């Protein structure tokens, strides 16, 4: 078990072993989070810059908390409060951040490929916190970690991702992650948002909700993203709910012990019935909690933290 990367750009380049390494380290950090003193000094003296050029609540907060738990100093920057509004490029902004001696950049950006681009022009680690419709690797890691807690293994499990797949970075990162971990992945939703070409990524494409849900071990719901897609993809949110919304009756199609996941923010009454989102089957808040441990693992590993060293300090 080892880790040699300085950046986390996506799930696609990772091996199964690397994914399992992150889960292993995440478990160690999760144990720390259960203590009274929820802080370890492993990144003390390091400065992490949260460069969020697209709105985010959950992800930014989770990264900030993860960094704080590791004793790093965190500086957060938003697009509207930065030189981007004055026309500065990502490259120049990043070079400035490096000149200020930052140790790591966490980037959220609306353009696919932005994190990879950034990692090629600066030397310090770059963590992708979502690049356009491309990848959101830490979301897939926390989802995988949550699935493992409930299903013990992901190998051969039937997992359905339901909703706006086309514009979803969460869907892509989860497809890469879950297929590497041996799951049978189905993507489902309206044909306009779930094109057949997703089959080339090794998943099943289904446009009928019942077929998508029957016998699934877990279903991941995705938000219908108003800000990302043009209005041509489906008639209305109401129609979406009537054809693809998950409610208690439709949830019966799942395996009895199946779990319901959602990366948030949820649109109650659109992709998921409000009661169902709050029910026992829903692990939505567990996902949020696991987002801290998994992101601590990513920050730690990409900073060059050793796996054995960590095991000693968390005993």
């Amino acid at each position: 078990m080892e880790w040699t990367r300085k950046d986390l750009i996506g799930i696609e380049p990772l091996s199964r072993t690397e994914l399992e390494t992150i889960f292993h380290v995440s478990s160690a950090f999760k144990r720390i989070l259960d203590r009274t003193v929820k802080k370890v000094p492993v990144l003390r003296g390091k400065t992490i810059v949260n460069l969020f050029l697209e709105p985010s609540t959950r992800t930014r907060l989770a990264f900030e908390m993860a960094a704080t738990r590791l004793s790093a100093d965190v500086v957060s920057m938003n697009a509207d409060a930065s030189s981007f509004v004055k026309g500065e490029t990502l490259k120049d902004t990043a070079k400035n951040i490096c000149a200020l001696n930052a140790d790591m950049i966490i980037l959220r950006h609306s353009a696919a490929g932005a994190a990879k681009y950034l990692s090629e022009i600066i030397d310090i680690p770059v963590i992708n916190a979502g690049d356009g419709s491309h990848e959101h690797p830490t979301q897939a890691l926390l989802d995988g970690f949550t699935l493992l807690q409930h299903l013990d293994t992901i190998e051969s499990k039937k997992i359905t991702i339901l909703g706006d797949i086309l514009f979803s970075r969460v869907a892509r990162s989860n497809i890469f992650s879950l297929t590497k971990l041996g799951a049978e992945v189905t993507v489902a939703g309206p044909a306009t948002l779930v094109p057949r070409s997703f089959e080339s990524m090794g998943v099943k494409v289904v446009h009928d909700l019942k077929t998508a849900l029957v016998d699934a071990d877990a279903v991941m719901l995705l938000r219908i993203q108003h800000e990302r897609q043009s209005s041509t993809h489906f008639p209305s949110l109401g129609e979406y709910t009537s054809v693809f919304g998950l409610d208690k009756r439709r949830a019966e199609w799942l395996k009895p012990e199946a779990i319901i996941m959602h990366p948030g923010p949820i649109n109650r009454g659109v992709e998921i019935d409000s009661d169902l989102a709050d029910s026992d089957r829903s692990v939505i808040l567990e996902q949020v909690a696991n987002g801290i441990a998994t992101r601590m693992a990513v920050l730690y590993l990409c900073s060059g933290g050793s796996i054995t060293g960590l095991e000693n300090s968390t005993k």
Partner: protein
Amino acid sequence: MSTTRIIKNGRIIDPKNLRDEVADLFIKDGILVESLSDQEAKDALITDASGLVVCPGLVDVHVHLREPGQTHKETIETGSWAAAAGGFTTIVCMPNTNPPADTAGTIQHILDAANRSAVVHVYPTGCITQGRLGEKLAPIGSLKRAGVVAITDDGDCVQNNEIMRRALEYCHMFDLPIMDHCQDAAMTQDAVMNEGEWSIRLGLKGWPAAAEDIIVARNAQLSEMTGTHVHMQHISSAGAVDIMRRAKSRNVNVTAEATPHHLALTDERIKDYDTNSKMNPPLRTEKDRQALIEGIKDGTLDIVATDHAPHTNYEKDREFDYAPFGILGSETCFAVTQQVLCKEAGMSLNDVIALLTYKPAELIKLSAGTLTPGAVADIAILDPEGTWKVNEETILSKSQNTPWWGDVLTGKTIQTIVAGKTVFENGTIVA
């Protein structure tokens, strides 16, 4: 006294005249002649072309010279250098300048700059619509009188079918072809690459081939209706090739070009978000690429044109979504085209040179592109086996945005001669 030149012992390839032989080529006062008198031969400047190909100077009906308005990317002068470095002696520049070339005054400005600074022949095109906005016809008659060889809104595509129909009818009386950039705007809004497996994987907004095919089909129908020659620019999809083939079988007055990059590359190039592989229309799939090659071979696609589109490094060096569309084409055209069409697809060098000489010239009714005695002595001396590296020294364009940067290509320009005078030799412009 006359000025005379002899280009000795080259393999003369002149596809228009079905000529392919090792012989001498004679030039007198900038004009090709059958022979020289003994005295003229004695006084002639001799160029030894042994082991090299001597062919008509290449003709490119699709370049962006960026002047006026975007001279940080390219100027008429530097664009003509790039052309000469690629063996081109005649280039046709697109009107998507700033301001757009939609008035006689702007055309005159371009011609003046060309006279002053270009080392090859430069012919301008004018806009179809005012401001290239697709709304009102540009003053096409005045543009013709000012010297345009074709009408086009290149970079944009007239979306309104009624306007396009009227543009075709109107152009017909001036005997001007319309060159169209075939792109349905609504279907490609915010799109940055071909729609397919790679766009899905990369999370980039996809650009369906159908958005091109639909406009090619529309243009074929309108050409059939009006009789006006419509030239489809940079065809990139298998569907468009098929539509062209069917239109031509009905003798519709349509022609089409393919670019070297669409013949050589596919959308897989974008897997690492390489902005120097971002262009409009986008690189498509291997199936499309094969269809383009097939279309070139059977004559469905008439010519090769580069769509030379310079952009600075700082414009290209950024997030893929934000980088501008377009790549250089002039310097690399011959090498890339012969690599694909001769070495990969088995076409003869003669046929490939035809695609780059008299065929594009005839398409816009220029007398260029032949070595016929009496023609202006525009000549390219090429080494099909010569290798060269794409770098700061070999790229004479003001910009460097090519997917072949750093690569070693086979197929080299040795000398470019315009009206009997050498303008490019030993890798540099001869002032």
